[in-house]
């Protein structure tokens, strides 16, 4: 719970990646109201650009998108920002893609349509883990010096 409190103090920066424009606009409005800093993009390439431009804590990623798909985007993101937490949110029901996503380092996998509260919880959990890992990374950095 302490972690959750911490996360509430520091607002999680969330990147929404989905080709459904209405979905991302609505979702960013909802999440913003819940105290997240939200930005929405509608394809994989823009998502990569976005994480290069700014720092984000959690990415909510759709798997099936035109152009660069979710799995490819996930690979690039994890390489560029290893501490970035990714939640896969997809309408596609294949277990294989879910397992693949988890193996590539995604934090969680959820299916559309998702209850807002459920998503909010997942984002908060992911954010908490990110903070924890950043702390540990700092510690180990300090320890090595």
């Amino acid at each position, binding site marked *: 719970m302490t972690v959750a409190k911490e996360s509430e103090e520091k607002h999680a920066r969330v990147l929404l990646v989905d080709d*459904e424009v209405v979905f991302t606009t*609505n979702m960013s*409005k909802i999440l913003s109201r819940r105290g997240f800093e939200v930005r929405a993009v509608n394809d994989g390439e823009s998502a990569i650009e976005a994480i290069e431009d700014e720092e984000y804590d959690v990415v909510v990623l759709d798997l099936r998108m035109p152009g660069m798909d979710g799995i490819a985007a996930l690979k690039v993101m994890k390489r560029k920002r290893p501490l970035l937490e990714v939640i896969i949110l997809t309408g*596609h029901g294949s277990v294989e893609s879910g397992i693949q996503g988890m193996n590539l380092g995604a934090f969680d996998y959820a*299916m559309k*349509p998702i209850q807002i509260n459920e998503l909010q919880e997942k984002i908060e959990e992911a954010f908490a883990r990110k903070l924890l890992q950043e702390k540990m990374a700092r510690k180990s950095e300090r320890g090595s010096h």
Partner: protein
Amino acid sequence: MSREVSTAADPDLPTEELHKKSYSSLYRRFILLTLICSVLPLLVVGWVIYSNYSSFAYSRMEEFFYRRVEYNRKLIELFLKERTNDLQLMAATHSVNYLGDRSNLQRLLEKLNQEEAYFIDLGLINEEGKHVAYIGLFDLMDKNYSQTFWFKALTAKGGFYVSDMFMGYRKTPHFIIGILWSDGNKKWILRATIENEFLDSLIGNVKLGETGEVFLVNREGIYQTSPRFGGKIMDKSLLPIDSFEGEGGVRILEPGESRAYKKQPSQVVGYAWLKEPNWVLVVKQDYAEAFSDVNHANTLALVFLHLSILAILVVSFLTTKHMIGVVRKRDEEANFLNRQLMQASKLASLGELAAGVAHEINNPLAIILTESQLVRDVIGDYPDFDREFKTELTNSLSQIEDQVQRCNQITHNLLRFSRRSQAVPGLVDVNACLEEVVVLLERRGITSGVEFVIDLDKDLPQLMTHPSQLQQVFVNLIANAIDAHEGKPHGTIQIRTRANETERGAEIMIADTGSGIPQEIIDKVFDPFFTTKPVGKGTGLGLSISYKIIKDLGGTITVLSEVDKGTEFKIFLPFGSAKTGEGPADDSRERI
């Protein structure tokens, strides 16, 4: 390949018809082949044996006749020679004066007839043909023989002479033996008569079956002994004597060879010419009788041959029929497998389609949910809204969210279904599997007025099995159960699962209160293509596929039914090696 394509293109009749035709042609070809390979050699062997045996039997018969006729010829020749020798000895050892005395002649005749009464009479005749002395039954003392055929022949020939049968002065058939000799300047003849009975007794007694006869004929064809059939002594024989060439032989006398024998059957004739007199001894028998043993054997062989052929025919017909049956069954199985494969691929493509649709629907559902959430958020922003309005709006939103949730459930089930249709064997929660099927079919049941009563054993362990196949079985059985209520206003379908610890397996029971299955067809319900549904409504494959799947999964499926009461299908599936699965894989699966 082309046949498979055609079966895929249109399902039933043309290929069935085609198969039927090819079976009957196969049947014909098999039969023909067995006949050629077995009956033909048998016929050849039969024919060879028949002809060889016939020729062998013929030569044996020929030899038999030859020996017989030779034997009889020798007998007669010996008899005549002995009698001739008797007379010659008499002439040589007695003087004419002695012989000329009647009492002496009487004594000598008695001596000659001591053994048997061969001679009837005895006479001494001078060269003028007059009796010098005579002893016998007839009064022939004053007869002059100088003009008789035998006197002429004897004087011309000299030595001795044996005459043909003739009637002579005494008017009974007889023949004579004459001896001619000279003492100094005069020639004398000793003449003795022999009755025909002696020759008859020598050969006439010889019995030869039903149709056999032995007789003597002279050069002119006059019977010298009484034949058994068709005439008597001194009659003209109808035998073609001229054709009896050489010393003797055996020949077949065909009907029609001589005019008189036209009406008689074929005859086997053995003949032998005597040296003196010029007679021919004939042994004759109907061909049919002579060869009756052979014919009998041949008939037996023929009967055996026919029976063998009959047996071969019967056996080949039966085996061919059996073989065709086996081939047909194989074909049907292959056909069945093909259809099953088609069914499976249909199901798989259906699954893919379902997955696509589910995915497409999930996105708009997600948007609807976000919209609803946004509205909720906005309501929160305006606390001065009318309270009643606010409640109503919130209720509506809840309803929207509930319906979205319901759609979500459906798409999830569809996705699960499609995933299962491709899945490999794994640990399956039978209860969950059943529930998914029920969700899929519940709507259909409700429209048919059917209520589901579900009683699942919570402790049922997971089974190592093929989820999609199992689901297919459940779909088939439950869909059938719903269809069984057609024409009934309402009914129930009971679905129950139980863990059977004693037999280590899961029991799944699906019972309906539908129309039931009549006892006379209950044995056929698992047969492929057997259906009670009207044409076009059922493939007749559902239950047979279910049966095969359960069998392949190592289980059993049984059916109990009572007309108008309902039907109960009971499936038993063994737990298998991995009885309870608590693997991590299940966890991830449950989440999605």
